[in-house]
């Protein structure tokens, strides 16, 4: 009966973010929050394991004040309770800070047999938090898992690593990060949404974690963000006669020294 913790991040939906043409700054004013895409896969994986084997799923998140919007959402997706840390510090925290905060919360509210995360968040996609967590907790990390099983006190994963696929195994307690292709997160049913109100939401004040100031100072600082804009020629040939279009394209390629 495993005790599983899923870490998740509340992010802005990047589909709603617009680039202002005048200065390429980002306009997030219409962007709604969502649970980061691959974190949903992690939640689904945890819930699936517990449905099969019994046990419990806790969800944990560290964010700014908007993180309160995440709580019923994550509970409706199958977590039994949610631990949440809301602090303005989160707005400028990097993975270094976040890993320390989450590790401290895990030590305080654990122990957990398994800590699950998505492989990366859909906003910054830093792809480092799960491994950092494992290092801080001194646990093995099964990263980039496409499949994940728990067998007694061991976890087994198929890791998809670009040019190779690896079957790996580690003793519990362990950390794992999951790929988006691992599963299809279920859509909460009405009863699951309404049932979320009955599940515990536990606020964990940052101060209560007892972290020294040096661990809460980010090691990387963002200087600026600008929208990426493609500035291409956009010379499009769309005559009805395909041969004519081809001729003009060939001529263009020749002018670019490409044929």
């Amino acid at each position, binding site marked *: 009966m495993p005790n599983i913790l899923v870490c998740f991040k509340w992010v802005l939906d990047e589909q709603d*973010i617009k*680039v202002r043409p005048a200065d390429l700054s*980002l306009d997030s004013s219409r962007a709604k929050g969502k649970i980061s895409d691959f974190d949903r896969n992690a939640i689904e994986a945890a819930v699936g394991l517990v449905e099969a084997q019994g046990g419990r799923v806790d969800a944990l998140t560290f964010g700014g004040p908007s993180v309160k919007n995440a709580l019923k959402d994550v509970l409706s997706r199958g977590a039994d309770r949610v631990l949440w840390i809301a602090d303005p510090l989160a707005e400028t925290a990097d*993975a*270094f800070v976040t*890993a320390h905060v989450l590790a401290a919360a895990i030590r305080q509210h654990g122990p957990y047999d398994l800590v699950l995360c998505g492989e*990366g968040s*859909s*906003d*910054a*996609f*830093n*792809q*480092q938090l*799960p*491994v*950092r967590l494992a*290092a*801080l907790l001194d646990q*093995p*990390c*099964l*990263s980039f898992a496409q499949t994940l099983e728990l067998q007694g006190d061991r976890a087994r994963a198929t890791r998809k*690593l*670009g*040019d*190779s*696929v*690896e*079957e*790996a*195994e*580690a003793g519990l307690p362990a950390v794992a990060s999951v790929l988006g292709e691992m599963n299809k997160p279920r859509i909460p049913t009405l009863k699951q949404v309404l049932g979320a109100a009955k599940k515990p939401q536990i606020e964990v004040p940052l101060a209560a974690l007892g972290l020294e100031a040096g661990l809460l100072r980010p*090691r*990387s*600082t*963002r*200087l*600026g*963000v*600008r929208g*990426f804009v*493609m500035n*291409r*020629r*956009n*010379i*499009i*040939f*769309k005559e009805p006669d*395909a041969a004519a*279009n*081809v*001729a003009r*394209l*060939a001529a*263009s*390629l020749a002018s670019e020294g*490409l*044929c």
Partner: protein
Amino acid sequence: MAGIFVYSEDAALAGQLLTPALELKRALGQPVAVLAPDPASAAALAALGPDRVLVLEGASGSPEALAPALAALLAQEEAQVVLVGATLRGKHLAAHVAAVLGAGLASDARALAPAEGGLGVQRILYGGLAVSDEVLAFPAVATIQAGTSPAPAPSAAEVAIEPVQVQADARIRVHRVEKAAAGGVDIAASRRLVAVGRGFRTREDLDLASSLAGALHADLACTRGIAEDEHWLPIERYIGISGRTVKPDLYVAAGLSGQVQHMVGCRESRVIVAVNSDERAPIFEAADYGIVGDLYQVLPLLTAALAK
């Protein structure tokens, strides 16, 4: 102590990392050291101009299994900058090292340069929508994708190769590793590419693209769906946000719509050409030249025109 350290389990990629490493050496006045996984790559990398080459001995584990040992080594050396090749294994390794060093880590970093207070980098955000400029305090760790820089020119300077003993982390047991069937070509090195998407109805129809690639002296690449769902091309040919990033002189996008998740992998190509039957496909906004038409008609005509 101090120093700029470079590592990738892929020797070619490690070579490419030396270019930004040597640039940082000039700016920061610190020596460049390469961590080589074996003697053969050590010798090859030694010829590219580092000040030191450390060859790892005693464990033939995956990069991730070597992470604790390398982290301890880098801590001992008081490394100020650590550059790791951005394979997935490399990213795992880099994250562990960063945690042990108490360092920031810029994933898929570009445009590395000294900045006030540390190492300046650029990163992509929101799936390709935006670019962010960041500064990492020292010590700083960064992972860098293949193809971001070329390898440096060979250097005649003699470099001693120092063996370093490392132990693999035994906590993860690997039962089986299956290497993906080699696609033969490293598309990140190709100067010209023809990329295919869902506009092609069958695997055999990719021949139209192969013929065009032949006429252009180009290699084939594809979108995520073609590699991961259809398995019509090997995974190393898939270009996109969780695939390869390429910067060829010519990128021909045939029968693909041009969504951000794909374009982020190829949008620094010098010239982008699109062929698509849907005038409103986003690819046309991202293209220098394009033809609105049926690829089944256009590609053979284009192949013939270029063959002349």
